[in-house]
C-alpha cells in the first residue's frame, strides 16, 4: 500500500506556479505556457519535440507525470464559425437557421469550405501527476499535410496505445512509431474519419438487408441532414462579469485547489 501524495518531509504541496515553472524547466524550454482557466495548467509543445518533452516530464522528479489520463484529437477546421449570422437576420422566420453558412455537416453547394488553418489537427494530452497531485494539459499540433502525422507516445506511457488508435480512427491522425495502428471504434471496412469537421453528422452510407441479393448492402444515405438549432456565437455581454472576474483571478495566479 502506497500513498503517492504522502510527503515524508511534510512539506506543503507545491503551488501551481512553482509546478508550472518546473514543467517549463523540465521540458528544456520547449513547452510554452498556454491559456487555461484559473487553477489549470496548459502547455503547447512543438510536434518535433513531443516524445522528448513527454519523457522528461515523466522522469523529472519535480514534475513526475506517471499517468496519461486521456489523449484526444481535435479538428480546428470550423473553429469560431457560426451557422447563423445574428446580425440583421430577424426578419426571415425560422428557416433562416436551417441553411447555415458553414454548417460543418453540409457545405453549401458551389461554396467550398474556407482554407483550413495551417494547423488544423492537434492532439491533446491530459496528464496527471499523482505524486504532486497536479493535472497538466499538453497540446501538440500535427505536422500539416494529409494525413496529419505526429509521434506516438506509447513508449512513454503504454496506456496511450488505444487512445492513439482511437484518434487515428476518428481523425485520421497517423501516430509515427505506434506498434499497432488499426481502427478501433468504427466498423470493419469503414471509410473516412468520422470526427473530422468535414465529415457529415449523418454519415455517407446506410445499410439495409437486400432480399434480392440476400445479404446486407451499403447504400448512400437517404436522410437529409437537418440543423434544428443553428450554431450561434454570441458576443454579447451576458458573461462579462464572470469573465472579468476569471481573468482577474488568472492574472493574480491564485494557486487554487486543483480541479476544485
Amino acid at each position, binding site marked *: 500500500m502506497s500513498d503517492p501524495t504522502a510527503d515524508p518531509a511534510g512539506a506543503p504541496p507545491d503551488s501551481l506556479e512553482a509546478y508550472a515553472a518546473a514543467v517549463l524547466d523540465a521540458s528544456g524550454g520547449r513547452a510554452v505556457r498556454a491559456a487555461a482557466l484559473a487553477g*489549470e495548467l496548459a502547455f503547447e509543445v512543438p510536434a518535433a519535440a513531443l516524445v522528448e518533452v513527454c519523457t522528461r516530464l515523466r522522469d523529472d522528479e519535480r514534475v513526475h507525470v506517471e499517468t496519461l*489520463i486521456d489523449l484526444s484529437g481535435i479538428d480546428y477546421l470550423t473553429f469560431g464559425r457560426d451557422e447563423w449570422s445574428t446580425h440583421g437576420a430577424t426578419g426571415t422566420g425560422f428557416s433562416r437557421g436551417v441553411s447555415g453558412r458553414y454548417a460543418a455537416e453540409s457545405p453549401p453547394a458551389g461554396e467550398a469550405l474556407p482554407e483550413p488553418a495551417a494547423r488544423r489537427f492537434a492532439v491533446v494530452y491530459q496528464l496527471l501527476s499523482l505524486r504532486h497531485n497536479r493535472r497538466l494539459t499538453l497540446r501538440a499540433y500535427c505536422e500539416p499535410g494529409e494525413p496529419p502525422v505526429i509521434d506516438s507516445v506509447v513508449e512513454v506511457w503504454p496506456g496511450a496505445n*488505444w487512445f492513439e488508435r482511437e484518434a487515428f480512427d476518428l481523425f485520421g491522425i497517423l501516430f509515427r512509431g505506434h506498434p499497432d495502428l488499426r481502427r478501433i*471504434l468504427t466498423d470493419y471496412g469503414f471509410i473516412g474519419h468520422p470526427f473530422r469537421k468535414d465529415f457529415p*453528422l449523418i454519415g455517407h452510407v446506410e445499410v439495409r438487408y437486400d432480399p434480392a441479393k440476400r445479404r446486407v448492402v451499403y447504400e448512400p444515405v437517404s436522410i437529409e441532414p437537418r440543423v434544428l438549432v443553428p450554431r450561434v456565437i454570441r458576443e454579447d455581454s451576458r458573461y462579462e462579469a*464572470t469573465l472579468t472576474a476569471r481573468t482577474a483571478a488568472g492574472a493574480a495566479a491564485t494557486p487554487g485547489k486543483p480541479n476544485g
Partner: protein
Amino acid sequence: MAEIRNFTLNFGPQHPAAHGVLRLVLEMDGEVVQKADPHIGLLHRGTEKLAESKPFNQSIGYMDRLDYVSMMCNEHAYVRAIEKLLGIEVPLRAQYIRTMFDEITRILNHLMWLGAHGLDIGAMTVFLYAFREREDLMDCYEAVSGTRMHATYYRPGGVYRDLPEKMPQYAPSKFRSRREIDRLNQARSGSLLDFIGDFTDRFPKCVDEYETLLTDNRIWKQRTVNIAVLSPERALALGCTGPVLRGSGVVWDLRKKQPYAAYDRMDFDIPVGVNGDCYDRYLVRVEELRQSNRIIRQCVDWLKQNPGPVMVEDHKIVPPRRVEMKGDMESLIHHFKLFTEGYAVPAGETYAAVEAPKGEFGVWLVSDGANKPYRLKARAPGFPHLAAMEELVRGHMLADVTAVMGTIDIVFGEIDR
C-alpha cells in the same frame, strides 16, 4: 506425429460473459491464452460528435447512456465541465444532493458489478441479492427524476429540482396481499430522504450477506486469488484508475485527493488492496459499498437540516420557473431563448473529472463561444482498463478470461461511446 500449433478462438460479441458486445479474439495454446485482441466499437454511437451538433443542455441525457450503470456520475463530469467554463458556483444543497446521488450511483454500479461478476464465475445467488437492493435505489432515481436509469437530473447550475417530500408507494394488486403491500410501503411513508435514510440503516446488513456468500467461499477464492495480478507501477503506466488502481495498492481517489461537490465535508475512507489480484479488487469494491453508505448517511442528515436553493438563479443559464413566466415578460424571453438557442459558453477549454464507480470519468470540453460544444471528449475509465486486459489475461486459462473481464468492470456504453 501431428503438428501442434496455437489456435484462434473467437469470443463474443454475443456472449453472456462478454458484458455487452465485446468481441475477443484469443490465441490459445491448449487452454492457455497466449494473446488477446479485444475488438470494440460494436456499440459506437458517436456520442461526442452528436454532442457537437446540439446545445449544451441537450447532451446531458447522452451522458447517462455512456456508462449506463453509473448514470449520474457521467452527468456530473459533464455539467462540471460546463460550470467551469461558465464560471458559475453551484448552491451547497445541490452539491450535497449530487454527492448523495453519486454515491447512490456507486452502490448501484457496484451491485450490478458484484452480481454480474458472481454470475460470470459461478455464483448465482448474489446476483439475486444485489438486484433486490438495486430496486430500492432505482426507486430513488425515479422519485427525483421520473426515470429509473437515465435520469438527466444534474443540470449546469445545480440539479433539476429539489428532493420530493413524498415517496411513490406500491398500489394494492391481486398479486400481493395487504400485509405484503403494507410491509413494502412502510419505508415509503415519509419523504425521499426518510426512505434513503432507512436504506442506509439496512444496507450494511445486506453487504454482510453478500460477503457471507463470497468472501470466504473457497470456490470464489480459487477463481479470484492470484488471478490477473497488476503491479502498482504497471497500473499507473497503463492509465488505470478507480478500484483497479486501488486494488493494486495505490491510494488514489479523486473524492479525497481533488475533492469536488461536497466530498471535502464527508468522512470516509479509501480502501486499498495489497496484491492487485481479482480478489483484492473484489474486496476494495465491497468495502466501497460500505463507505458509500456512510457518505449517503451523512448527506441525508445534512440535507434534512439545511433547506435551500438547488439551482443558481441566473436565468441566462437556468430556465425560469413556470409560474414566473405567466406574468413576467423577461422570464418568458429567457425561457424562449434557452429552449430555442440555449446558452453560449465563453470560448475556452477545460477538463473536469469525477471519481466514477469504475474509475476516473472525465470530460474534456472545448468551446469556441457558441451555443454548442466545439469538441467534447469523454474519458471513460473502462477504455484503458480494457486495453490493459491483454496483459492481464496472458498466461491464464480460458476460464479466467471471464473472471478478468468481471474484475475490470467494463460497460460498453462508455468504452465505445
